């Protein structure tokens, strides 16, 4: 692990000292053990805090769209040049943001990290157990090291959940969602949720009631999860951000599973193919369509 950190520090030092980038988004050790937090490095000589270990679970792509958003009333504003320390899932999120034209490619340097899987306390995150891309697919500067093997067993929870009856599924879903305190941390942690005004906050039209009616909370979660269709890279940033420990993954992973099954699309792999729900194929499946009886 030490060689990887040293190589990463050398890469970041080179980028900053040569002035190739203005800021590097990475990790530093947090104040409690076995945790890291996102950190922004601007000075090539102050990199002693830069960390890379098995607790770097935050998805750093979440900071990118807002860095490239022009400040209100700014006159002479040029977008910054940013480098991001990206493990597999961060890299895939970055590709998604590039495709959705939220970040300019020419101002971005992707430092690809070989990810061994991130720990949640003493356990591996469930997202990492089921990870198919431990090393990002689109990389400018790869850091050497061995990445985790691609997962073979995937979506077992989804299959188990699907096998239950609709009543049981709905009960489990509502039981989980009833823990929600509507802090919207899942939205804030998600790199795909960059909308300046979210449907959950809008008042014209007001999509959701403001109270604690379970129906509104469910509608929020259906809306938020559905907005990830064809975009979710299953990084579990939302799951990790949830202060109430809601088992969101079993619901969120349905969408990437569906998009893969119906349209053969895996988000965040290539910069060329359009996002799945922005395009169509004449021959798309329409089994869900009700035919008028003759």
């Amino acid at each position, binding site marked *: 692990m030490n060689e990887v950190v040293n190589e990463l520090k050398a890469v970041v030092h080179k980028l900053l000292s040569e002035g190739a980038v203005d800021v590097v988004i990475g990790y530093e050790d947090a104040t409690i053990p076995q945790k890291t937090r996102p950190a922004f490095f601007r000075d090539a000589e102050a990199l002693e805090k830069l960390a890379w270990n098995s607790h770097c679970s935050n998805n750093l792509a979440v900071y990118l769209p807002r860095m490239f958003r022009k400040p209100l009333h700014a006159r002479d504003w040029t977008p910054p040049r940013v480098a991001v320390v990206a493990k597999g899932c961060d890299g895939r999120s970055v590709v998604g943001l590039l495709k959705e034209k939220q970040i300019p490619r020419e101002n971005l340097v992707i430092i690809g990290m070989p990810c061994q899987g991130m720990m949640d306390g003493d356990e591996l995150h469930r997202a990492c157990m089921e990870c198919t891309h431990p090393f990002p697919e689109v990389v400018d500067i790869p850091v050497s090291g061995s990445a985790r093997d691609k997962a073979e067993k995937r979506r077992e929870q989804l299959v188990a959940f699907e096998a239950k009856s*609709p009543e049981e599924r709905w009960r489990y879903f509502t039981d989980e969602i009833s823990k929600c305190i509507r802090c919207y941390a899942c939205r804030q942690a998600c790199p795909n949720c960059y909308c300046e005004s979210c449907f959950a906050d809008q008042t014209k039209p007001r*999509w959701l*009631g403001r109270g604690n009616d379970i129906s509104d909370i469910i509608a929020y979660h*259906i809306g938020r999860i559905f907005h990830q269709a064809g975009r979710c890279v299953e990084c579990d940033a939302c799951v990790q951000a949830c202060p109430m420990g809601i088992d969101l993954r079993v619901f969120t992973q349905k969408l990437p599973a569906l998009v893969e099954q119906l*349209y053969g699309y895996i988000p965040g792999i290539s910069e060329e193919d359009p996002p799945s729900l922005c395009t169509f194929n004449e021959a*798309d499946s329409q089994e869900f*369509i009700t035919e*008028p*009886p003759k």
Partner: protein
Amino acid sequence: MTNEPDIKQGDWEPKIVAFLCNWCSYAGADLAGVSRFQYPPNVRVIRVPCSGRINPLYIVNALQNGVDGVLVSGCHPGDCHYISGNLVARRKFAIFSDFITYLGIEPQRVQFSWVSASEGAQFASLITKVVNDVKQLGPSSRLVKTGAVNA
């Protein structure tokens, strides 16, 4: 909706909201009326420019507000007035429909169809089918807000 009398449990009739695209399905509904085809009066039509205009949150909000069933209908694939609106919508609704079924909402509550402007008879039979499906399911209970009409 608020002006309607309370319906007793015994002779319950479902309320169904139909989102129809202006160019095909709405015209199809019009043709069904002009041709005097009979279909159940449980359906409330909302005209939208295109099936691609329908935000899945409309469907969620309709169910929240006590609607028993939702029908979405647009032009047949290839016939869209805006060339490809219904094709993009098809992907969106294929995923949305599977997703809410996965969560445990009955698939017959939210149905999708294609009806062209010349298919008045098909529109009538479609509405009959959707109303019968929803009658079989009974009043909507999932997702309904407290205090919603019919709740």
